[in-house]
């Protein structure tokens, strides 16, 4: 197998304005690599939701996107508070986002469900007070 094409990003935890920069760049790169609009849409939405989560809950984090022969992998890692109850967090409508986040249209409790919806595999490794690492894969073949 050839070496995967990788992209690394730092997600700024300070503002919502730059959130979406990394997913926007991934979208552009995947388009240049010739992926279908549907694959690009799924990867970029999943990544954007992850970026937003890191901004809302973890003060930012790191993202790595790797393009393998038959799938695209997105790894999101932060040093935030962790997810105390994953099952609850995965329920649509459940959110711990603060009021000012809801005022701009986020915090509907659909971030993690959307990440699962748009990817073929998703694993969450989390430890309270330590951080969270989410690995998502979208099959491309």
């Amino acid at each position, binding site marked *: 197998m050839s070496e995967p094409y990788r992209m690394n990003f730092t997600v700024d935890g300070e503002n919502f*304005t730059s959130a979406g920069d990394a997913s926007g760049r991934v979208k552009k790169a995947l388009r240049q690599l010739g992926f279908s609009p549907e694959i690009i849409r799924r990867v970029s939405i999943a990544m*954007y939701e992850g970026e937003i989560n890191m901004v809302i809950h973890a003060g930012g984090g790191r993202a790595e996107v790797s393009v393998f022969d038959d799938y695209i992998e997105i790894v999101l890692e932060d040093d935030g508070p962790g997810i105390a109850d994953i099952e609850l967090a995965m329920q649509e409508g459940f959110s711990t986002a603060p009021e000012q986040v809801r005022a*701009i*249209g986020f915090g509907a409790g659909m971030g993690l469900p959307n990440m699962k919806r748009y990817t073929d595999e998703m694993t969450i490794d989390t430890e309270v007070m330590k951080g969270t690492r989410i690995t998502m894969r979208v099959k491309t073949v």
Partner: protein
Amino acid sequence: MSKTVSELVSELGLEALALTEGERELKGGFTGDLLSYVMAHLRSDEAWITIMTNVNVIAVASLTDAACVIVADGAEVDTEVVQSAVQRGVNLLRSNASAFELCKGLAQIGL
């Protein structure tokens, strides 16, 4: 019957804040203000009607591949949001009509 974004602008009398790809064809519409809900349900090439006008709307429209955003109720849109739409190639439109009236308008022109 398919319509382009430019046709939509002229037939519904919308204000074009950023018309980056007027020839784009519309395949339907969706209305919603909760961004993650929109990301879950809006399909490619749909017109997205919303009253939200922060810069994240442009990111969501771009990532979901919406054909255009129509801001309802004449909501105020900051210059930086318009600039972001131009940069990301998002068609950003506005109307004084409500979301409900805009949906009726889309139906009347055959969407």
